[in-house]
């Protein structure tokens, strides 16, 4: 079962249109929430007048910041840093607005139409101030002492803060000495310094389903029920409970179906708090469904980094002795739930697959009057991989070495694994758990005949075409802990239920978890019921992010099923009067090895474990066991992306003709789902490399607020992704040997395409920023 191309158990429901997404929760008497948003990028709030909106028939309430003044700013879920606290976002704007789309007021009405009519009637008097948009510029004053003190919520006075929220250094070795030594050695000697300036534009995950939330306070059960949560329901339960002044056990958060997550969807946003608080205050079901324009202007943006690097390289073979890097991350107007996650991941994953004995990176997180930013599929790695791989290409080009050769020179070798870098990633020690990077490069080059592709490029070039081929290599990370748990239960009918704290953003986690259980119990996966994403069904769950669930929940499910098998065997041994060692699980029964007629079905064992019988057997009642998996370390999958591109000489249009991915996931629990993850990831990577960017006018007005201007690539723009999924380096740190597959489709797309475009243009180092626009290519070709 593990490793099978098992069909998704989620699909029969979804394909019949029976899914329940956020907007599908409909409750009698529900009120629709509409948020009134700032039309200007920065301004001082003079007045917000909701009185005309309240006069509209069908409008029940309308609030401004004054009405919710007791609510604190929204907290950090990950990578909290004290220096970021003054930049936290209020639920409704307080004194000043800081980006177009910032919630300023909110109305509740009997229909979504009325709510929008009412929102139109809210009068905003905002005195515009000049917007700060350039995260490369020196920091400017950002929040005054009063706002800083309020937003930090530390109970002590803070001074005013500037727009650089944080600056931190991640390093090992001795970069200063390495460079100094090389200079001291002098002359046109053995080493050279190669520099890179690379930018990744502002874009983000755009799930098919926009955000949405429905909440109701159930008076009978004394329970606040919140439907439509995604990604991190357990964390959101704690946060919502705190905001509503309820103990967590009085809040039930339920994940419905989720139409894509990708990082932004499911975090706690101002709107989520408003829905929950309104359900408590107004004692009515509250529903909020985000529209696409709101989504593009208010849900987390991401990326938008500017990297500058200096590498000290050995002339002879391109060995990178030292890397000295800085980058600025354009955080937008507030620091939201992700804290410093993206900056921190960018920094720690920057060296990627290479040894680089001396490394230093200075990260700067800077505020601007744009939509706040957070994580997006492969956060920090997409950006860092682009910058680093561009640098490595440049090193190869400058030294006249092959691009593959320089990578081989610098790879961490298989015999160095596990390889520890003395830095932290997401609060864990960065230890590459396993991997053979050179082997993957060889395998992919052979499987897809890189030499043949090169020859074809030369041939077509001779015919006048502008074609090129390039690749990028990367290391991903997955399986962040600390803990995940699962419970496997078999009822007297022999039916199996897996209950756990995992979440699904549509990735197929139910299927994979069912496969893991099915493997242990030797049954089909599709009869297993998977219960997850409900805070009243399991005690704990960290959520669906950071490509963690196959590793964490998968291992927990394996442990739970293993424990269940043990318990079933103990009972069967007693009943069949044999020893536990003589038993095995076959087709959902415990059978005596070699005597298959002597067997007990799991359902029968469950019957024996009914409370009274269990007492006689000295077992806990019920055939149900828990399993947990804890880890202090992440696993590190790795891969290679390659692209064959053609540029239209006349228009500059970039055609991605082939896209190739080699990825080692340790163990593919379900190869079809791994491939699906990769293909979708590539599409999003291509979006960021070629099409998608949130752009702003000089006054801070966003110019990409619909799908006419924010260009998500479609089926027409994405080539069939060719893949080689390998299992050469199983993870030694979890029972399944698995590494996550969720993000490796995205990581090196920009790097690979940029490399291929350089090659097509025959201009080394031509592409230093993404997205790559046809107008730019046209100019380079002219």
């Amino acid at each position: 079962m593990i490793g099978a191309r098992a069909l998704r158990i989620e699909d029969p429901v979804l394909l019949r249109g029976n899914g329940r997404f956020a907007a599908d929760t409909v409750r009698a008497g529900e009120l629709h929430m509409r948020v009134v948003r700032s039309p200007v990028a920065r301004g001082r709030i003079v007045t917000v007048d909701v009185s005309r909106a309240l006069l509209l028939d069908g409008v029940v309430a309308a609030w401004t910041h004054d009405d919710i003044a007791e609510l604190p700013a929204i907290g950090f879920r990950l990578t909290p840093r004290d220096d970021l606290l003054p930049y936290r976002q209020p639920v409704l704007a307080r004194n000043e607005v800081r980006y177009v789309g910032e919630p300023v007021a909110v109305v509740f009405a009997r229909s979504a139409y009325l709510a929008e009519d009412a929102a139109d009637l809210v009068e905003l008097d905002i005195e515009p101030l000049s917007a700060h948009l350039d995260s490369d510029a020196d920091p400017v004053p950002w929040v005054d002492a009063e706002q800083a003190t309020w937003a930090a919520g530390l109970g002590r006075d803070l001074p005013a803060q500037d727009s650089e929220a944080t600056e931190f250094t991640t390093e090992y070795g001795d970069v200063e000495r390495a460079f100094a030594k090389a200079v001291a050695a002098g002359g046109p000697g053995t080493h050279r310094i190669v520099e890179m300036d690379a930018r990744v534009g502002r874009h983000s995950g755009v799930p098919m389903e926009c955000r949405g939330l429905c909440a109701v306070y159930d008076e009978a059960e004394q329970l606040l029920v919140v439907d439509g949560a995604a990604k991190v329901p357990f964390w959101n339960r704690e946060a919502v409970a705190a905001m509503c002044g309820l103990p967590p056990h009085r809040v039930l958060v339920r994940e419905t179906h989720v139409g894509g997550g990708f990082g932004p969807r499911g975090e706690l946003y101002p709107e989520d708090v408003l829905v929950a608080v309104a359900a408590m205050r107004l004692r009515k079901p509250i529903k909020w469904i985000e529209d696409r324009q709101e989504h593009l202007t208010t849900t987390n943006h991401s990326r938008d980094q500017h990297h500058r690097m200096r590498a000290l390289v050995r002339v002879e073979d391109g060995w990178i002795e030292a890397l000295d890097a800085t980058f600025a991350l354009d955080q937008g107007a507030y620091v939201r739930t992700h804290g410093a996650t993206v900056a921190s991941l960018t920094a720690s994953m920057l060296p990627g697959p290479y040894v680089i004995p001396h490394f230093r990176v200075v990260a700067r997180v800077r505020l601007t009057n744009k939509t706040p930013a957070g994580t997006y599929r492969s956060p920090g790695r997409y950006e860092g991989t682009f910058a680093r791989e561009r640098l490595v290409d440049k090193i190869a080009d400058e030294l006249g070495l092959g691009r593959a050769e320089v990578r081989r020179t610098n790879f961490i070798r298989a015999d160095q694994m596990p390889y520890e870098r003395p830095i932290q990633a997401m609060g864990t020690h960065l230890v590459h758990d396993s991997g053979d990077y050179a082997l993957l490069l060889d395998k992919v080059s052979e499987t897809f005949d890189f030499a043949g592709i090169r020859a074809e490029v030369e041939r077509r070039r001779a015919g006048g075409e502008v074609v090129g081929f390039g690749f990028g290599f990367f290391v991903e990370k997955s399986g962040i802990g600390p803990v995940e748990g699962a419970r496997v239960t078999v009822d007297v009918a022999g039916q199996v239920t897996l209950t756990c704290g995992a979440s699904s953003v549509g990735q197929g986690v139910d299927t994979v978890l069912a496969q893991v259980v099915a493997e242990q119990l030797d049954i089909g996966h599709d009869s297993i019921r998977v219960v997850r994403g409900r805070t009243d069904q399991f005690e704990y769950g960290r959520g669906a992010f950071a490509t963690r669930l196959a590793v964490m929940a998968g291992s927990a499910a394996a442990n739970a099923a293993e424990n269940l098998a043990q318990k079933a065997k103990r009972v069967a041994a007693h009943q069949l009067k044999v020893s536990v060692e003589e038993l095995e699980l076959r087709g959902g029964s415990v059978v005596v090895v070699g005597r298959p007629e002597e067997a007990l079905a799991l359902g029968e064992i469950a019957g024996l474990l009914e409370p009274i019988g269990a007492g006689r057997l000295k077992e806990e009642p019920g055939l149900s066991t828990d399993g947990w998996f804890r880890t202090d370390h992440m696993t590190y999958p790795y891969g290679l992306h390659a692209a064959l591109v053609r540029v239209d000489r006349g228009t500059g249009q970039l055609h991605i003709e082939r896209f190739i991915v080699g990825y080692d996931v340790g163990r593919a629990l379900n190869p079809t789902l791994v491939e699906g993850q990769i293909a979708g990831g590539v599409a999003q990577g291509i979006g960021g490399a070629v099409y998608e960017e949130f752009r702003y006018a000089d006054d801070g007005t966003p110019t990409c607020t619909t799908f006419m201007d924010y260009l998500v690539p479609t089926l027409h723009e994405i080539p069939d992704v060719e893949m080689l999924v390998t299992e050469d380096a199983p993870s030694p740190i979890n029972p399944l040997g698995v590494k996550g597959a969720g993000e490796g489709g995205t990581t090196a797309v920009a790097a690979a395409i940029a490399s291929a475009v350089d090659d097509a243009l025959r201009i080394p180092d031509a592409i230093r920023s993404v997205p790559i626009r046809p107008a730019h290519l046209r100019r380079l070709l002219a």
Partner: protein
Amino acid sequence: MKPSPFEYVAPTSMEEALAVLAGDPDETKVLAGGQSLVPMMNFRLARPERLVDINRIPGIAGTDVVADRLVIRTRTRHLALQNTSLPGPLGHLLRHAAAKVGHLPIRTRGTFGGSLAHCDAASEWCLVASLLDADITAESQARGSRTIAAADFFRSIFTTALEPDEILTSVSLPLLDDSWTAGIAEFARRAGDFGIVTATAAVQVVDGTVTEARVSLGGVGEVPFRSVAAESTMRGEAWTTDLITAAAQAAAEEVDPPSDIHGDAAYRRDLVRALLPRALGRP
């Protein structure tokens, strides 16, 4: 993204529709395919008080050949034109232009008349109408029927010669005999997007010499731009690849395109230079 309140009327005859429109012309909008109007209402960029839906009126869709012209009735869907069996260069042009309008679902609803009335400078149908000097017929209750030449019809961005109480009822285009070559080439970032620049061209060649030339460009101004420079470059000259290159160069120099996030003026000129030859079948 919900429209502000409006009244909805669905008449079953043109007379009724014109009467509704005459009742309150400034606050009433015609609803055809809804593929432009409805999004604008959802964004609350348009807030008509009343919609008069022409989808239940019989006899206002489809095409007829009348003498040497093709008459396209207003509610003819983009998809019907993509599937037209009309022979010759005009059929070729209509099929190729239609295929570039949005995506399939949009083409099943959007209409030829609606596109002209909406008057987006990048619209394929506005370009075709401009290219072939279409005659555009409109009716009102007060003044009956009148015909407007394409050259007078497209006024500025989203603005035509239609009066608020008028309904566009049909459009006629000249049938092109086989001495003509006509085509369209469009540049968009993604399949189905409005073109950033679109070139349409129709050239009549007799005995190797260009006797008539028409060029209309989209995405270089507020309305379709007839390139007099390109046309006069070609007229009377021998029909060669060099001539087409020269015409494209002349057009690129003549246009004065806008700059926006999809492309600056210099780039749009480059696109004119690249696309005009492609419209005439030369890569």
